[in-house]
């Protein structure tokens, strides 16, 4: 191996891949039953964190940053004057294996600029995955980026070796896509998604009857949307996300605050800030949809096109729905417990367990670890003192903001602080 040359390629091709935020390596069931290398049957592990606070769990690189397309928001775009490089298939295989053996990573996330055409590029991505599985007996995690426009046959093959497949929609509205990625068509994203979804469904049916059915993309598919590049509202973004979750059984939708990479009249200026707080609010909303039983229309609608940046979306929802509160912690059913600001999934479970033994009071609740500064205005429990009975929502919001200044104002990471 020519380490210096590989190092140079790594610097170029990791740099270009870093804007893809998907990093999760969980949700697959690929047990190491072959006495080979690797196991992805557990939860994903973050092996390190970048200085911007994102988790490093996969070797995330491009196969090449040559590209025939010219998407305005992308560093790899044809018209950008940058150094280009390409990995050989075997080089990616070697890097993955050597990094994995040292416990640096959970696996590989391989994406690519478009070399010649979609199929040619997709084929090479598949070759990497195939070598890892068949020649190296590798059971670690593999996430392949599907190239928009790749054929159905290749999408089928990709899913046989990868744990997860993703096509990044990037721009949440059709009009934005037309403006910023003129070479791409909406259908080019949808077609591979549809194919993957159908293959997964078919796999699930067949595997009921035929034990030997080869696994197909066991960790499902995901997609990513860039936030703040094309003037879309939070409602546009989350309704798209909701559509992908429902229609294509997405495992995850990722939201990525736009990092300016080009001087272009169609885009925010080069010195504009990455909308980190907005990104965080979108993730929180995503969680509310997936784990808290909220319907998207409760959180975003005609009256609320954008999320409140000052307070988290659950608190914001609760402030708009004061007629449902306060609820009695010791009696209210689980669905409503989940909707109390300041109480997360884990606390809900603890409350449900603990209230079997005794009626809970303020002290129990704060010991359980719920965020009392928010929750106390929305609940009653086995304590006498109540908070101010009927303050206006506006007043409440201010009080909560004041008592939680540190936490809310400085909350800028993508690491979620969840309710």
């Amino acid at each position, binding site marked *: 191996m020519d380490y210096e040359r590989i190092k140079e390629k790594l610097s170029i091709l*990791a740099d270009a891949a870093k804007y893809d935020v998907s990093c999760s390596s969980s949700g697959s069931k690929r047990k190491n039953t072959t006495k080979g290398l690797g196991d992805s049957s557990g939860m994903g592990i973050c092996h390190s964190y970048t200085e911007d606070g994102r988790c490093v769990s996969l070797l995330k690189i491009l196969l090449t940053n040559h590209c025939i397309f010219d998407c305005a928001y992308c560093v790899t775009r044809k018209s950008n004057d940058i150094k280009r490089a390409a990995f050989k298939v075997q080089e990616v295989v070697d890097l993955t294996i050597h990094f994995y053996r040292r416990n640096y990573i959970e696996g590989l996330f391989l994406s690519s600029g478009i070399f010649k055409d979609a199929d040619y590029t997709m084929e090479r991505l598949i070759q990497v995955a195939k070598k890892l599985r068949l020649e190296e007996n590798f059971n670690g995690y593999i996430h392949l980026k599907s190239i928009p426009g790749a054929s159905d046959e290749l999408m089928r093959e990709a899913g046989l070796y990868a744990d997860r497949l993703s096509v990044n929609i990037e721009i949440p509205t059709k009009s934005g896509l037309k403006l910023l990625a003129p070479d791409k068509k909406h259908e080019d994203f949808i077609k591979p998604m549809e194919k993957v979804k159908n293959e997964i469904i078919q796999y699930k049916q067949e595997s009921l009857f035929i034990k030997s059915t080869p696994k197909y993309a066991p960790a499902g598919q995901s997609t990513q949307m860039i936030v703040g590049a094309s003037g879309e509202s939070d409602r546009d973004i989350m309704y798209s996300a909701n559509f992908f979750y429902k229609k294509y059984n997405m495992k995850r939708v990722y939201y990525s605050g736009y990092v300016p990479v080009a001087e272009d009249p169609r885009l925010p200026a080069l010195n504009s800030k990455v909308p980190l707080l907005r990104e965080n609010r979108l993730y929180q909303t995503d969680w509310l949809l997936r784990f808290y039983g909220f319907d998207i229309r409760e959180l975003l609608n005609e009256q609320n096109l954008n999320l409140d940046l000052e307070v988290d979306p659950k608190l914001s929802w609760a402030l708009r729905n004061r007629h449902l509160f306060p609820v009695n912690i010791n009696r209210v059913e689980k669905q409503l417990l989940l909707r109390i600001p300041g109480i997360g999934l884990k606390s809900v479970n603890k409350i449900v367990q603990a209230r079997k033994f005794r009626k809970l009071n303020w002290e129990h609740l704060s010991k359980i670890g719920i965020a009392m500064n928010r929750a106390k205005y929305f609940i009653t429990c086995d304590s006498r003192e109540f908070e101010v009975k009927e303050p206006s929502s506006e007043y409440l919001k201010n009080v909560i903001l004041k008592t939680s200044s540190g936490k809310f104002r400085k909350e800028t990471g993508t690491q979620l602080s969840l309710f």
Partner: protein
Amino acid sequence: MEQQAVLSYDGTLEGFLTCVFTAYEEKLKVVAINASENTTQQLFTASYEVITHSGKAKRVWLSLKKKTSAAGLRDLKWAFLSEISQMEMQLYRMIRYILAENVPVDRDFSHPAVLKVAQAAKKVGREKHRMEAFVRFRRTRDEVYFAAIEPDFNVLPLIKSHFKNRYADQKWIIYDLKRNFGIAWDLAAVNYISLDLDPEVGISGAPEAYFHSSEIAFQQLWNQYFTSTNIKSRANSKLHLQQLPKRYWKYLTEKNL
């Protein structure tokens, strides 16, 4: 005045469970349970040196099992590995509470001992998880992948199976420098081992005498990757430090090469 008992034992989980058995058997009013070194004679207390007895330990464990959820048993075990001082007394109080009640109470977090034990277990769990993430193997000259760690809590017994499942086809050793023992996979089984380590071996880097000629190159490649994957315009050092506390940096090739 009822006499108070201070028990000492050998520091093992079996030893501790034997203490519990002894306390019940002899109807002692236990005020402290210590791993043997730190026993001091006190007025009005009787000291008992408890000899580990696996049969007695097992009986305690089995009766606990009947009344405790899997999560509760895990908490007891993990909190024990925390080595937090006086944790034995919390464990003892929780065990008494469990055995006294007819319904399972190991999830009753309004009971102070149950809560303390759960909190300690949580800390241990967090470090277990961190060690699964932060162990950095280095390839030695004789093709064993070697990692050294110095965790706050005694987590080696808890990470054994994780690494066994993951690295079935390579020999490896994970060594706890603080407690001076390690776990070693020889392609057939994981064993506990104790080594005389040259301090040169350290926690990262790759002194030639011990490590494969390509080892440093891969550490540098990893460093390059770590640097190139960072997005400067999103810098957030507070978050970074929160996720990667400084005390772990010494393990991390990318922070410590």
